[in-house]
């Protein structure tokens, strides 16, 4: 267990929509300003910026100029960064603060993921570089197709069913009803799920998150300062980033390198994550689990030791699991499936709001300790956040 060096003291969002009508730089600036206002800070307090993107956003330098930052000590674009980095970026801010490179860091993600450049899919050129030169010619090009391979394998090995996947979509949507930020708030049923079209078997439309326009940001600052900000700080108790270790594959698309597609990165990072925080999975009050697709929740519930191998399907389908009011509410905002895909950083922001008790009708009672995860396949990252 290590000491807590930093806390999240501010959270900011733009609206989340299919068409923002403005640039990614404008979205980033709005989210950063909102996060600073939430913290009771100004841009003059900021000496670090960290973001991640897939060449679909403005660089940290752009936001530094937009905010008029003077000589920031840290400016990081964790490039070629997918949702696997959405927690790692907060870990990086915490590391920079521990190293004395910065004192107050804005971590953000801004994208026009629906109206602009969509991740890996329709509307952008097909990628035939790197490892993909061996895969794209087979017609295997986008993330749903890639993660469908993991989902199918999990179903084969453990008997996970389409009903299990559908239950995640249904229960997530139920949470979005009480989230004004969410793009999809109308409840759905398992019948609706099975009526939604097959995209890439076993994934139907409702297994797939909502590509979205928008931005969100958090302000991370050293604990000495965090005690004096406008809102109670949420401590970065642990941060971990890594891969499965089951083979040479580290590239997201490098499915060939992974020995066992029924086990993803969670297995590799959980021990050091929980060890760093001095907690176990049983201590968690709620979890925000990266849900680019329903099946990624299944793999992570097992990877992060919330249930044992093969138990996640029956677990999510249980009467008193996943939902608000259950022992471990999951994806309290509706997740990426129903709130929208701000590339996973909106799991971090929701966790902070829950830990501050600001979530109104969807508030988890006595929320003190949260797991937040990011990633679906070979590599990923995670945080343990808590009241301090």
């Amino acid at each position, binding site marked *: 267990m290590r000491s807590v060096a930093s806390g999240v003291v501010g959270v900011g969002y733009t609206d989340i929509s299919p068409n923002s009508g403005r640039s990614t730089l404008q979205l980033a600036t709005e989210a950063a300003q909102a996060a600073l206002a939430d913290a009771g800070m100004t841009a003059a307090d900021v000496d670090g910026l960290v973001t991640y993107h897939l060449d679909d956003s403005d660089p940290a330098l752009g936001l530094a100029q937009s905010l008029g930052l003077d000589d920031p000590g840290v400016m990081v674009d964790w490039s070629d960064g997918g949702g696997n980095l959405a927690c790692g970026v907060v870990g990086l801010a915490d590391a920079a603060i521990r190293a004395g490179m910065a004192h107050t860091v804005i971590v953000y993600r801004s994208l026009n993921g629906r109206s602009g450049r969509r991740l*890996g*899919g*329709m509307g952008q050129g*097909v990628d*035939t*570089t790197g*490892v*993909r*030169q*061996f*895969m*794209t*010619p*087979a*017609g*295997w*090009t*986008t993330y*749903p*197709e890639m993660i*469908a*391979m*993991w989902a*199918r*394998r999990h179903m*084969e090995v453990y008997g996970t069913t389409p009903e299990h996947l559908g239950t995640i979509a249904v229960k997530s949507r139920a949470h979005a009803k009480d989230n004004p930020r969410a793009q999809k708030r109308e409840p759905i049923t398992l019948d609706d799920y099975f009526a939604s*079209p*097959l*995209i*890439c*078997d*076993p*994934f139907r439309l409702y297994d797939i998150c909502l590509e979205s326009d928008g931005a969100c940001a958090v302000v991370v600052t050293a604990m000495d300062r965090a005690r004096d900000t406008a809102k109670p700080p949420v401590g970065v108790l642990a941060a971990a980033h890594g891969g499965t270790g089951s083979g*040479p594959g580290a590239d997201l698309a490098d*499915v*060939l*390198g992974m020995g066992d*597609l029924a086990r993803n990165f969670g297995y590799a990072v959980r021990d050091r994550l929980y060890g760093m925080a001095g907690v176990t999975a049983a201590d968690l009050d709620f979890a925000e689990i990266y849900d680019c697709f329903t099946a990624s929740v299944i793999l992570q519930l097992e990877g992060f030791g919330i249930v044992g191998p093969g138990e996640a399907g029956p677990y999510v389908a249980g009467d008193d699991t996943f939902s608000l009011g259950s022992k471990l509410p999951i994806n309290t905002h509706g997740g990426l499936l129903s709130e929208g895909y701000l590339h996973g950083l909106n799991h971090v922001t929701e966790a902070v709001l829950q830990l501050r008790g600001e979530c109104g009708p969807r508030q988890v009672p006595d929320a003190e300790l949260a797991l937040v995860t990011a990633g679906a396949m070979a590599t990923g990252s995670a945080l343990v956040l808590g009241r301090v």
Partner: protein
Amino acid sequence: MAATKPIPTLRGEEKVYFEEAKNGRLVYQLCRDCAQRIFYPRTVCTNCMSENLEYVASAGKGTIYSFTTLHVPGHPEFADDVPYTVVLVDLEEGVRVLADLVDCDPDDVKVGMSVEVLFEAVTEDFTVPRFRPSAQ
């Protein structure tokens, strides 16, 4: 009418791989120093960092490890092909490859199914390996 199929720019080890495919051979690499079997082709061994790698032709037989059937194309280049199935195949030689599956109804695809390789020219210069259910 779908757009032209995407074709990688062939320079190094991928050039060897696809030229072998054009000659009707599905190749993987064998490390002469540690006997690691490697797919896809690279310049150093994934186990010992040796550059002493040789190309070996697979018999082209294996079983399906996982699969997905696309009902919506990920890119317009494949719009005329849906529904089609992409498979991960564990070759008998102990390497895993990815390709599309032909001559098989999507409803009949199963994990563990025996498959064998065939080769199809996409253009005059570019051939891809594909798989179909084994004859027996």
